[in-house]
């Protein structure tokens, strides 16, 4: 079992203050951090919100470019005036980990879990730190807390699956009196480091809804245009559709409709063709995943696809391959598919019901796609929104 602990994506920093996000976010439960930060904002910090956004995005930019010391300075000076701020403290933990200050990072995340027990992300990162130290029991507890606070937190589910498998392997080693050191590969630290690379590599992608407010003013327009509720559960669209089925099941022989297709049609008729092509690509991707067809699955990704953090394309591919081939059965079912096309770029967001063996996780997912020749390829994949 490889120690492929998955990154906890940083909560999109700009979302809490985005005035454009509300209507879009209504479709899913806002994540806890969003909720709590929104609450803070409502509590009287509205005036300062833009300044917050700048600080957050500056720090995230510094982290992204590996300027950790500088980032830490910014974080510390910010925390000097607002010591309780969860987002900055979260950044601080990430930075400490990247500076190799594991114990400090553990302290930071532990305190965050104590002060904001409703946030899953600090638990997840705490778990990753524990796992890196081989403390899988503690990692397990932390991940279970993360899931308790946010049952649909896919990253924690996936990490927990790995931790369970790792613990099982250890238990079996002890049961069979094997020398654990010979058979257990220590967690790959490089992978674990990824955890703390906030996946903001596409922050300047105008199509990324997560960053519209702060990073890409131009995106405001794009988002605003489609901000009206777009999902119509029972829209009869394509001939093959089962009109009343709101759920798309990729393994089915004839991929069927996406409600969003008709919605998109209604709001942007010119994009219909492109939108359908994107939908086909997304469904094919889910189908390949369901069928454990790794080759087809990987082909759905653009050569420009950037795995999270420092992870190389090769490492990412191997990890995906291991995770897919290692399962006895996989089922990926998409619903609430929402597709927006802007020229050569597209964003598909949907609810993804993932079942693998006994694991069952439902989560919100967003794929960014780019048109390449006649096909749409995935350039970015993110959970949450």
């Amino acid at each position, binding site marked *: 079992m490889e120690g492929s602990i998955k990154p906890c994506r940083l909560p999109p920093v700009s979302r809490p203050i985005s005035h454009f996000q509300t209507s879009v976010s209504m479709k899913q439960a806002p994540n806890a951090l969003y909720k709590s930060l929104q609450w803070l904002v409502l509590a009287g910090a509205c005036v300062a919100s833009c300044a917050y956004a700048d600080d957050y995005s500056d720090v995230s930019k510094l982290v992204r470019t590996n300027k950790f010391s500088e980032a830490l300075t910014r974080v510390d000076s910010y925390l000097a005036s607002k010591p309780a701020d969860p987002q900055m403290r979260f950044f601080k933990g990430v930075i400490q980990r990247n500076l190799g200050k594991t114990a400090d990072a553990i302290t930071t995340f532990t305190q965050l879990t104590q002060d904001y027990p409703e946030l899953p992300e600090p638990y997840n990162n705490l778990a990753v730190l524990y796992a890196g130290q081989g403390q899988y029991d503690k990692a397990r507890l932390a991940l279970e807390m993360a899931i308790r606070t946010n049952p649909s937190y896919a990253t924690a589910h996936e990490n927990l699956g790995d931790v*369970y498998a790792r613990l099982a392997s250890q*238990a*079996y080693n*002890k049961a*069979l*009196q094997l020398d654990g050191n010979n*058979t257990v590969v220590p967690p790959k630290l490089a992978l674990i480091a990824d955890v703390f690379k906030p996946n903001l590599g596409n922050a300047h992608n105008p199509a990324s809804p997560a960053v519209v407010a702060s990073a890409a003013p131009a995106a405001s327009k794009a988002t605003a245009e489609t901000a009206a509720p777009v999902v119509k559960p029972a829209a009869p669209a394509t001939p093959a559709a089962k009109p009343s089925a709101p759920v798309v099941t990729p393994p089915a022989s004839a991929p069927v409709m996406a409600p969003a297709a008709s919605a998109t049609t209604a709001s942007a008729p010119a994009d219909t063709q492109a939108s359908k092509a994107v939908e086909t690509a997304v469904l094919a991707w889910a189908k390949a995943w369901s069928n454990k067809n790794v080759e087809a699955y990987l082909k759905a990704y653009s050569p420009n696809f950037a795995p999270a953090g420092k992870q190389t394309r090769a490492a990412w591919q191997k990890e995906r391959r291991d995770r897919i081939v290692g399962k006895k059965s996989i089922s990926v079912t998409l619903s609430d598919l929402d597709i927006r096309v802007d020229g050569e770029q597209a964003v598909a967001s949907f609810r993804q019901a993932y079942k693998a063996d*006994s*694991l069952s996780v439902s989560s919100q997912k967003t794929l960014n796609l780019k048109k390449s020749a006649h096909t749409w390829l995935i350039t970015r994949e993110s959970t949450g929104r």
Partner: protein
Amino acid sequence: MLSKTVYAVLSVCLLGAGLTSASASASVKPKSPVARASVPVGQDSLAEARLIQIYRLIGRSDTRAALDEAQRLVKDHPNFALAQLVYGDLLSSRTRPVTAFGDVPATQLKANAAALTSLRDESVARLKALKERPPEGYVPAEFVLLSRTSKHAIAVDAARSRLYLFENRASGLTLIDDYYISVGKLGVEKSTEGDQRTPLGVYFITSQLDPKTLKDFYGVGALPINYPNMLDIRRGKTGGGIWLHGTPPDQFSRPPLASDGCVVLANPDLQRIINTVAIRSTPVVIANQINWVPQNKANPQLDAFEARLNAWRKAKSSGNLAALNAFYASDFNNAGKTRGDWLPILAREVAQTRGRELQLKDLSLLHWRDKEETMVVTFGEVAVGQLTGTSKRQYWSRRAGQWTIIYEGTRL
């Protein structure tokens, strides 16, 4: 989900109303549920009881509680391999279907497949011993009569991998605890040195070895027994150093067939025995399968033995050497002394008694049946009017329907 059926095979009898008594041997009919429940009162911290509780939770499909319990158990007993195996299954069941008890991935298993087989055997043995309980009030047939000077008695059922500890109360022999044990790698019926078998017979604990003088391998201590006993010696059996001992630091328990002939207990269990029993006065019966019989039940054959023993006592009291000599087998042997050699010794003893009536104090009778029938008799021989006498041990053999003495000696 952990497949319920996987564990159902092992745990179905543990469900519902809890453990019920079952026939412990073919000759014994179950009576009523035994007083001792699956989890002995006040001993709910015992590792085995906790393991069984985990099985029960799995049987109820409460895998979350089972996982939590298993985690606590392996934390307390990290070297309890069987617990680790169950813990591994419970963890695995969260990521993949578990299809067998001990569903170790093939890649991991190939390093030590034999260990998995042993653990499955251990699990079966533990469960079997817990679901098939001796009926209440029944005792091993070997314990015919135990002097009140023997406060405890031990019986080992090798086939069940189980040691039963009895307390000799005024009300009778009472089962107070029982433990999983391991015996010889090649099983039982030791006959020669190095045959990796555990002896079968009636023995006594002879001493207690200080763990400081022992290798770690023997755990918290060792209680040697008197193998080879007089019957074994007569039969030409060889070897020695048969102990009840503990486990190495890295092993909580060992597979059912694991030792070179010793009886091996988990350290906490051995410690409990060491703390409980007296050296030298505690009999240890090791049987392949214990024959459980109702206590204090009329038994004409044993009445016949007691009558015979009483006749011997009277003959010795009377000083009639010819009559006394008739109780001794022609192949009598005490460390090379024949019946002919023994007669002068008897004559000297009789002379010292000077016609006074002999009394047999603190009489214990242990009955051993294999291809022959043997009675191991222990008593204090005290003449009327005397305050002290001699502790004696005799081995009687039943031949052609008549009990006859094949060994007699002073007991230290």
